[in-house]
């Protein structure tokens, strides 16, 4: 039996008393890319924060390759192999590009592939290489997004979470980010991609989960959605 790379079941998350996620469940197969869609405020970021351990779920289970991780601290979850490219990028803005990558480096996990290094990150993002000594806060939006992705890769993730990596970027940068994601997927990395950009997501994803007001409203294969526009119209409204 193949274990799922990431499996959520019955996740309930709260901010204080406000109940944001209601029994969220989905599974990510190894080497797949799961697109997580939903309107603004649907709970996508809350879902990422819960997986990462920033927010502890009140109920439910999260398993990374069969190993339960719900309730662990974020640093332990990262060390087990879940790394996040957060919404809004959240660089360590006073650190240089090099330092941002350095502090996030974690050892290769068992069952992980070829380890990530400065060289490999600079290989896929040559623009970062020219700016190693520059402070992250002074990078352009696109460069910050590349650095956020590079930083997450330095943790040698087994599952990569990406929260709206195309947000606020110029179209040609979005395309570049899209190519990078495709490349990571081709290397066999298991990825959860949160996006507002439906076209980008449908191009990359194997599976799609749509959440609406904190509940899973649709879950299926990406090609199903490509054929049936009604699903998009129904759950995501007109974009």
């Amino acid at each position: 039996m193949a274990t799922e790379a990431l499996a959520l079941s019955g996740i309930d998350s709260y901010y204080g008393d406000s109940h944001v996620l209601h029994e969220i469940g989905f599974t990510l197969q190894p080497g797949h890319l799961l697109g997580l869609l939903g309107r603004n405020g649907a709970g996508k970021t809350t879902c990422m924060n819960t997986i990462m351990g920033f927010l502890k779920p009140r109920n439910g289970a999260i398993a990374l390759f069969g190993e339960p991780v719900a309730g662990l601290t974020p640093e332990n979850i990262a060390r087990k192999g879940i790394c996040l490219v957060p919404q809004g990028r959240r660089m360590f803005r006073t650190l240089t590009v090099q330092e941002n990558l350095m502090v996030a480096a974690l050892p290769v996990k068992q069952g992980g592939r070829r380890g990530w290094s400065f060289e490999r990150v600079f290989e896929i993002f040559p623009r970062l290489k020219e700016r190693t000594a520059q402070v992250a806060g002074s990078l352009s939006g696109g460069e910050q997004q590349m650095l956020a992705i590079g930083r997450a890769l330095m943790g040698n993730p087994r599952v990569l979470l990406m929260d709206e990596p195309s947000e606020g970027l110029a179209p040609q940068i979005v395309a570049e980010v899209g190519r990078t994601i495709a490349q990571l997927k081709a290397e066999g990395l298991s990825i959860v991609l949160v996006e507002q950009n439906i076209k980008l997501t449908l191009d990359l994803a194997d599976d799609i989960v749509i959440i609406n007001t904190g509940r899973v409203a649709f879950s299926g294969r990406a090609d199903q959605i490509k054929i049936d526009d009604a699903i998009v119209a129904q759950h995501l409204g007109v974009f």
Partner: protein
Amino acid sequence: MQGQFWIIQTLNSVAFGGLLFMLSSGFSLIFGLMRIPNLAHGGFFMLGAYLGYSLLIRGVNFWVAALLGGLAVGLLGVVIERFIIHPSNRILLAIGSFLDAVIFRPLGLRAFSGAWRGMIARFRGLAGNEQGQVLMTLGVSFIVADVCLLIWTGDPMTLPAPPALRRPLFIGGYSFPTYRLVVLGVALVAAACLYLLMERTRLGAMIRAGVDDREMARGCGIPVSRLFTIVFLLGATLAGIGGVLGGPILNAYPGLDTDMLPLALIVVILGGAGSLLGAFVGSFVVGFLYNFGIALVPDLAYFVLFLPMVLVLMFLPQGLFGRVQL
């Protein structure tokens, strides 16, 4: 005469600035990383001065006394951080198992042992409760002050400066207080070491990452709770050494803690929490304002000191080199 006045006041200011840096660099790093002012920091400084006094009157070499006093205060800082501010379940669990093995089980108190284990498992301490943590540091500062009063009585104690440094230096017809120059030198060396630690090592970069975005740092696998302990160790040690070094200038007396703490607060508000450069510049600015304020306009000394703080708070809430919004 006039020249001598300026020289002395300037030297007093920079020496006091150096002491303030020893006090406030750690205070600022703790503030930046943990988001709480460690109100026991003045107590750490005072305790250092008293410990230094006790070591010195027993004939211990001055520099050894400074180091030992600093380390003792540093260890106290670690204990306070680990057991009071962020009690880790692991340590409590170890204590619990120990009690269980030597008391509850031998006495056959099976039920009690179970209840105890359950209590520890549910124990959350002050995690995430920053107001509670600040109050805790305030409580610690009261305890430190009372313990000092108990041990060293209420009389001021004068720490003797190292004999070789007691005579002033005479250069070009002016006399320079040697000891203050050396204090400044020590503070500058400490600043250089801290700079190298913070800017040139992975540990330092991790601390700065935690100051920038603590949650995201944890999400990158950075063991932030270990950094808390390290920063507390560092800050308390520096404050303790500062206390011993400051002893010959300021004396050790009850109230030294509450005299110093507001100055550290001003330094951090001026310089920005979590910024080493800010603590450095802020310390010397406050050193000058404090000394010249007292020397030139004694009635307005506190006004001179607090006015820049108010202005910075109003117009630059992150401080001159700020990292963290207070």
